[in-house]
């Protein structure tokens, strides 16, 4: 027992253990709060989306932070996961009545399909670098949004019906699953907060396992110095593909959970701004910093909602916060000040000892 504990809190595993503890404590705290006090509807409505965005930001951090590639189209993977899940959930709705089982199957479907797209997009990813790669991911996000905007998909007694660009479906007593720009309508809301927390825990497990493995080290080696990594025999294409596919699958899972939390969802939700929003969470939390990403996502996602009373000014304040934080964290004067304060605090502790 003592062995396990020391193992959990030794230097190598401390960060990982801390992440799990933060998530579980947050879950316990929120569950107690929602069951004991009357919380506002706004608060409960924010729980699942926050979980989704945390998973999304963690998955993007894998690409931007650990693999060192700028991706501007992460919402595309989220969209693929979301609409796959909606379709799967709608199709199996009559066969599998259990909501939890249906949710799990839908999320896995979203995850797999999104991962396949991640594999496709990793072909240009391997050939390009820097800003050219960023623009390809941006283009990818736009293409996905534009395609989903044109898909009409449904089923009736005659089986599955599909049409592209122009809606030519005439369903007899059937159900539309995707209706072009209208997106998914009348989806069964089967997501819940517990599922969100479990998805975060799974994501944390996947990411930590990857980072601590041989592949994780090669991914970071390739980020820090591509040529040096290649010269000692690291297969760059393989490591980068791996990071991209895992990131895409996790984003797909997040999208699936997100979609099943709303009865209607439009493809326009997953536009360039959403990709940028998630990127902001990642950069705010710190590249490659997992706990930081989780905290920054929670704060930055909830902040505009808390500022709702300020109405029109809230996005303006949000913008100012973004600019000011970037200025402050990059200012030499502030850094010096922080160093001085931390060294003073450190000294005091030493004296006490």
């Amino acid at each position, binding site marked *: 027992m003592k062995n396990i504990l020391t193992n959990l809190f030794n230097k190598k595993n401390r960060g990982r253990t801390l992440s799990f503890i933060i998530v579980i404590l947050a879950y316990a705290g929120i569950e107690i709060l929602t069951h004991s006090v009357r919380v506002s509807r706004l608060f409960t409505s924010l729980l699942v989306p926050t979980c989704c965005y945390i998973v999304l930001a963690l998955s993007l951090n894998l690409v*931007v932070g650990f693999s060192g590639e*700028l991706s501007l189209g992460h919402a595309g993977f989220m969209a693929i996961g979301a609409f796959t899940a909606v379709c799967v959930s709608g199709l199996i709705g009559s066969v599998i009545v259990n909501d939890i089982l249906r949710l799990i199957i839908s999320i896995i479907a979203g995850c797999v399909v999104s991962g396949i797209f991640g594999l496709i997009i990793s*072909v*240009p990813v391997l*050939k*390009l670098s820097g*800003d*050219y790669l*960023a*623009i*390809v991911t*941006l*283009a*990818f996000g*736009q*293409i996905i949004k*534009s*395609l989903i*905007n*044109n898909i009409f998909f449904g089923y009736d007694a005659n089986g599955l019906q599909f049409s592209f*660009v122009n809606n030519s479906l005439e369903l007899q007593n059937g159900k539309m699953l995707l209706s072009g720009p209208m997106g998914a309508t009348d989806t069964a809301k089967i997501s819940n907060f517990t599922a969100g927390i479990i998805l975060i825990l799974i994501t944390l497990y996947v990411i930590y396992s990857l980072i601590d493995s041989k592949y994780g080290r090669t991914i970071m080696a390739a980020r820090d110095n591509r*040529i040096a990594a290649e010269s000692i025999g690291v297969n760059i294409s393989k490591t980068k593909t791996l990071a991209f596919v895992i990131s895409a699958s996790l984003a797909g899972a997040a999208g699936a959970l997100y979609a099943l939390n709303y009865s209607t969802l439009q493809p326009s939700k997953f536009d*360039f701004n959403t990709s*940028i929003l998630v*990127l*902001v969470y990642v*950069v*705010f939390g710190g*590249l490659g910093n997992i706990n930081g990403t989780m905290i920054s996502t929670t704060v930055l996602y909830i902040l505009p909602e808390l500022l709702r009373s300020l109405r*029109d*000014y809230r*996005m*303006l304040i*949000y*913008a*100012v*916060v*973004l*600019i000011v934080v*970037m*200025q402050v*964290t*990059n*200012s030499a004067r502030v850094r010096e000040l922080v160093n001085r304060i931390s060294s003073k605090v450190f000294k005091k502790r030493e004296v006490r000892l």
Partner: protein
Amino acid sequence: MTFLTYLISGLALGSVYAIIALGYTMVYGIAKMLNFAHGDIIMVGGYAAFFAFSKFGMPAPVCILAAIIICTILGVIIERLAYKPLRQASSLSVLITAIGVSYFLQNGAQLLFGSDTKIFPVMLTDGSLKLFGGQLVISYLTLITIATCLLIMVGLTLFINKTKIGKAMRACAEDKGAAQLMGINIDTTISITFAIGSGLAAIAAILLCSTYPSLSPTLGSMPGIKAFTAAVFGGIGSIPGALLGGLLLGVIENLTKAYISTQLSDAIVFTVLIVVLLIKPTGLLGKKENVKV
């Protein structure tokens, strides 16, 4: 004849993209940053011209001048306040700051001017040229747009290659440290780059709003993304590349809208972009940089 009409209107749209792309490409070439707020400067230019024309009743040339001056000043202020302190910071920090500036401009405009769509007045001309006995109708606006774009390209190329400031800009793009040692004031050079880019954005704004006469706070974001794509398409950092990329993007977009599908035009444009980058990873006219160990 219809093909020619679509081609010419595509060239006009492409000219607007090219003018915006110039702002992206110059800033990228010299400051090595993606200025995501560039699209929103277009929006500010549109509103400036709108208010000067409709509310204050100024003549068109004065309105255009006012829009250019306002955008230029705004561009320089943004650079000084938001980007200059981050010269040494990581490119992602600068990117996030640019996104912050973009949000700020969009939401500021929404507060000041309201989120409703305003109709942009006919400022330049609404006449058109009829050729081949009325079979081919080209609006004067289309011609003005294409001519303006070509004029700007020639002017800018001469400016960069012949003047002292242009030389300083090229030196900064090549190697900032070495340029500084040669006595070039880097801050001034970067400010001038932002000023030129923003001034061009104002011109693009007036051309864009005259062609598609609706004005809203999010007006600049889609043309901004498209022009950014055009800049990368042609090879970012290259001025002829911006022209080529812009024109090609405009023509492809218009022809797909006309012959394939309006809804799918975005998907097709971006697919072409990805294919081009797969074949030529640094864009059509981009320079390939060899990494030395």
